[in-house]
């Protein structure tokens, strides 16, 4: 695959190196000439000095044949414009933007950017998983965080211990995906009885997470 990486900060630098190692054809564009020369010494010919928001640079990079354009600079406005121009003028099939302010994820999606990555949000979610004090732990956000996959460890005081699944009154739009017992996944059939020490993996609308917590905790 031909991948264009715009922005030669630390993330762009190490990402480019990893992509090259994975066997992809990669070009890294960096605006600052000093930084670009440093990156050229580190990574070689794959580094081009230029402003990825400029159409001239985009042509020079051969953007029309890029499979993926990744905009990973530290400025959200630049990342947005790079991806929009790549799509609009060069029909880039896939654009990925780094979003520094997590609040901007929504507008990026609305404006047609295929994927966004917010390191702030990822780190925040990881921390939240670690410090969540009660038993419902968010594992993965889906659909921009509107739906969550959560994990519930059943302690001795859980009101659902000893109940079969049809007798667990889940909130509307929540679904038990699987039950993990002794390291094995059990299909959540109607005759499965929940036991202390079970881990229940469930799918739930993010706004119903509190209700789900009340059912299990």
């Amino acid at each position: 695959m031909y991948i264009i990486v715009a922005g030669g900060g630390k993330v762009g630098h190490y990402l480019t190196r990893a992509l090259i190692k994975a066997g992809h054809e990669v070009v890294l564009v960096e605006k600052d000439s000093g930084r670009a020369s440093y990156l050229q010494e580190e990574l070689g010919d794959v580094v081009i000095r230029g402003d990825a928001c400029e159409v001239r640079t985009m042509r020079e990079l051969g953007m029309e044949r890029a499979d993926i354009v990744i905009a990973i600079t530290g400025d959200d406005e630049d990342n947005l414009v790079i991806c929009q121009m790549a799509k609009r003028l060069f029909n880039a099939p896939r654009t990925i933007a780094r979003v520094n302010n997590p609040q901007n994820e929504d507008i990026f999606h609305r404006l047609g950017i295929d994927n966004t990555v917010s390191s702030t949000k990822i780190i925040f979610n990881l921390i939240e998983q670690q410090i969540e004090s009660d038993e419902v732990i968010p594992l993965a956000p889906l659909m921009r965080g509107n739906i969550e996959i959560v994990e519930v460890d059943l302690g001795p005081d859980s009101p659902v211990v000893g109940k079969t699944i049809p007798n667990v009154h889940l909130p509307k739009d929540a679904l038990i995906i699987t039950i993990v017992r002794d390291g094995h996944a059990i299909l959540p059939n109607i005759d499965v009885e929940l036991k202390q020490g079970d881990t229940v993996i469930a799918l739930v609308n993010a706004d119903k997470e509190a209700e789900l917590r009340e059912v299990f905790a």
Partner: protein
Amino acid sequence: MNIIILGCGRIGSTLATAMSRDGHDVTVIDRNSDAFRRLGPEFRGRTVIGNGIDEDILKKSDIEHADAFVAVTNGDNTNIMSVQIAKEKFNIPRVIARIYDPIRACAYRELGIETICTTVIGARLIKDFLLGREWGMAKDYCVIKDDQLLI
């Protein structure tokens, strides 16, 4: 009209002062509080310090009740992004971005965003003047009377 102007440089401050003098409600946003010194004595509007692509700052500027949004910072991409937020998220009916790069200005105009490219306008005016063509209309925008800039 309730109008928000992002960027208090030469264009932003001149426009803000003129609109305020004409009786409109004007809010000017700039990252740098020093920039507000450019506003003329007739400016009666509000100033907000902050980043114009931050939705919290836009809300603080009461964007929810604005009729128009103008982005005239010196960063093309900031202007492009902020007008798209104003249009998409806050449904502001009239938005316009000043963009220096002519190609970007055209590309976004095709996407349905009003853009004004001062680079092209300036170059075209000077070219028309050099070639002896009609250029008076835009020239007449700049009139100074009694030490006051009239626009």
